[in-house]
């Protein structure tokens, strides 16, 4: 108990209400100038992980705030990635010809559902719409039936598996295991050269900043508070006259949207998209980094994704064999001692910042209505 001290921030430079925006602006500036002081390889790595951080914000909304542990975010990531890749492939294919992999697989004409992707506007709209609508539909199927906890995790994981199997199986339409590769240009801009690399990096950073601001705003609205309310007491919310399912579907759709945008950016950074980056294992990896950073906090989730993936790159090139063990141990450690992740740790260490009333996940005291699964 903190006695009668009001938990709102006081003046002074160290007050959490002032410190956090200052720190975030500093980090943003540091990142914005990165192309001028980072090497080519490090910059492309950073750009890639910044694009993943957009998906992390989605997981923060879906898992951290609404309490839905989805092990299938890779599906939405992949849908966004493939929607853009289809356009890029059509641009790279000479007029009147078929994409190379379709020729190898004996297709004679472009499938009708590929055709509209020739338009960049349509493709960009699909990057946003398809993952959002698919997530909304899957969410509606699950939450209408009041599925919660592990059942949701298992179903979303099964969807990820089915999606990858479908992609691999329909080789003529999706290029199967190889994925869609060999892009040339987008909106008339050649996808190579340092000018493009820098531009893509800044676009990624700008979109991440936009997604971050949007997520933070959203979680501060009454809607955002209701997501936390649904997580902590779905029945209480239902018996106050709300329909929790509609809030969960909305949160799940937002997670899908952010996943899709993230996947499209990642496809540009990688120069290809394939089932290898969107299946069950990548989906779980997304969740692990968010857990490490702190799932209930947008800052924590994004930072966990960025730092975790950089660590992965560095450690797995130094000691390739040990990497999986290190990642597994980190996850176990977080689950056991840091339910709020690194964000929770920072919060505990900062003086006076511990009790700001942000909807974090307090350990224990979870038995209230019996419908809130803690981690799995």
């Amino acid at each position, binding site marked *: 108990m*903190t006695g009668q001290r009001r938990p709102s921030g006081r003046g002074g430079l160290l007050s959490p209400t002032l410190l956090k925006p200052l720190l975030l602006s500093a980090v943003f500036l540091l990142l914005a100038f990165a192309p001028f002081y980072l090497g080519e390889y490090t910059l492309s790595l950073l750009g890639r992980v910044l694009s993943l951080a957009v998906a992390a914000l989605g997981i923060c909304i879906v898992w951290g705030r609404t309490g839905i542990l989805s092990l299938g975010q890779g599906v939405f990531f992949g849908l966004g990635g493939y929607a853009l890749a289809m356009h890029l492939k059509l641009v790279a294919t000479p007029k009147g010809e078929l994409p190379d992999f379709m020729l190898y697989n004996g297709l004679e004409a472009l499938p009708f559902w590929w055709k509209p992707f020739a338009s960049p506007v349509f493709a960009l709209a699909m990057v946003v719409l398809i993952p959002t609508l698919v997530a909304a539909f899957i969410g509606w199927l699950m939450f209408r039936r009041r599925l919660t906890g592990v059942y949701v995790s298992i179903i979303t994981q099964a969807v990820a598996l089915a999606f990858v199997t479908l992609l691999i199986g329909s080789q003529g339409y999706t290029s199967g295991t190889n994925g869609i590769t060999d892009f040339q240009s987008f909106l008339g801009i050649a996808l190579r050269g340092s000018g493009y690399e820098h531009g893509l990096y800044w676009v990624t950073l700008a979109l991440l900043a936009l997604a971050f601001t949007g997520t933070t705003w959203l979680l501060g609205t009454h809607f955002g508070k209701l997501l936390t309310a649904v997580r902590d007491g779905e029945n209480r919310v*239902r018996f106050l006259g709300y329909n929790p399912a509609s809030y969960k579907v909305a949160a799940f759709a937002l997670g899908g949207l952010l996943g899709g945008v993230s996947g499209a950016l990642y496809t540009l950074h990688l120069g290809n998209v394939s089932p290898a980056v969107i299946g069950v294992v990548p989906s779980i990896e997304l969740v692990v980094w968010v857990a490490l950073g702190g799932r209930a906090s947008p800052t924590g989730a994004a930072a966990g994704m960025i730092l975790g993936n950089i660590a992965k790159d560095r450690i797995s090139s130094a000691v390739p064999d040990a990497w999986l063990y290190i990642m597994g141990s980190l996850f176990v450690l977080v689950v056991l001692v840091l339910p709020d992740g690194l964000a929770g740790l920072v919060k505990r260490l900062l003086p006076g910042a511990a009790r700001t*009333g942000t909807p974090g996940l307090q350990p224990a005291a979870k038995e209230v209505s019996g419908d809130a699964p803690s981690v799995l």
Partner: protein
Amino acid sequence: MTPPASFSPTAPEALLDVRNVTVSFDGFKALTDLNFRVEKGSIRMLIGPNGAGKSTLLDTIIGKVHPVGGQVRYGGRVISGLPEHEIVQLGICRKFQAPGVLDALSVRDNLRVAVRRDKGWLANFRSRLSEAEEARVDEVLTLTGLQARADFPALQLAHGEKQWLEIGMVVGSDPQLLLLDEPTAGMTAQETAQTAALIRGLAGRHTILVIDHDMTFVELLGAPVSVLHQGQLFREGHLDEIRTDPAVMEIYLGRPKDANATPREPHAQA
């Protein structure tokens, strides 16, 4: 927002009318052909031994449990079969036995969730509620004596405070019919007395149905008592009559002669 339903001319007095309701859990009848009415604007206590069906009755009213027979009418309208949140939107709100506050949200935000009129997700992308809603939040904070705790996460409240917060949430949603399931569970004697005063103060504004075991609380509330036993209405009357009724003692304590607690001659009751 649907306005509370108006009364049908056939039942001008009863806000809640439970008619011949039977609830069965895999063959076990938790409620058997139960008839039960609560008049508009009144407070009613519901007591009965464990397993009498008190909580099941509230579950049935609120739509958590569906009766296999009979119907629940509210304001003249049949509500059994409607989804829970729609029943709540008609003006019935329930406080559950275990305090169901929203841990991570501040006390004020808990009340905002309750007070907010528009329950749809699309309508809630806004940071502040309407002036009237914010004023109602402040009103409920005063009513429950939680002003000093308004900005603390609900998780940090003491047990009694959590109970009050949840009563505040239920009251704040401005229901016509208030269902309170053991509102004083785990409270000290002083807290119980305060809770009784709080509930008595609500009487004019809401119709209230309270379940509780604590006889001091029942006494403090001074409301008519209904006794439920084996899924049926067993007795109805004033606390003094109920307390000295040998049949009621029997269902609570076993055989009446063993109980050895009937100072007066047992009097007949319908």
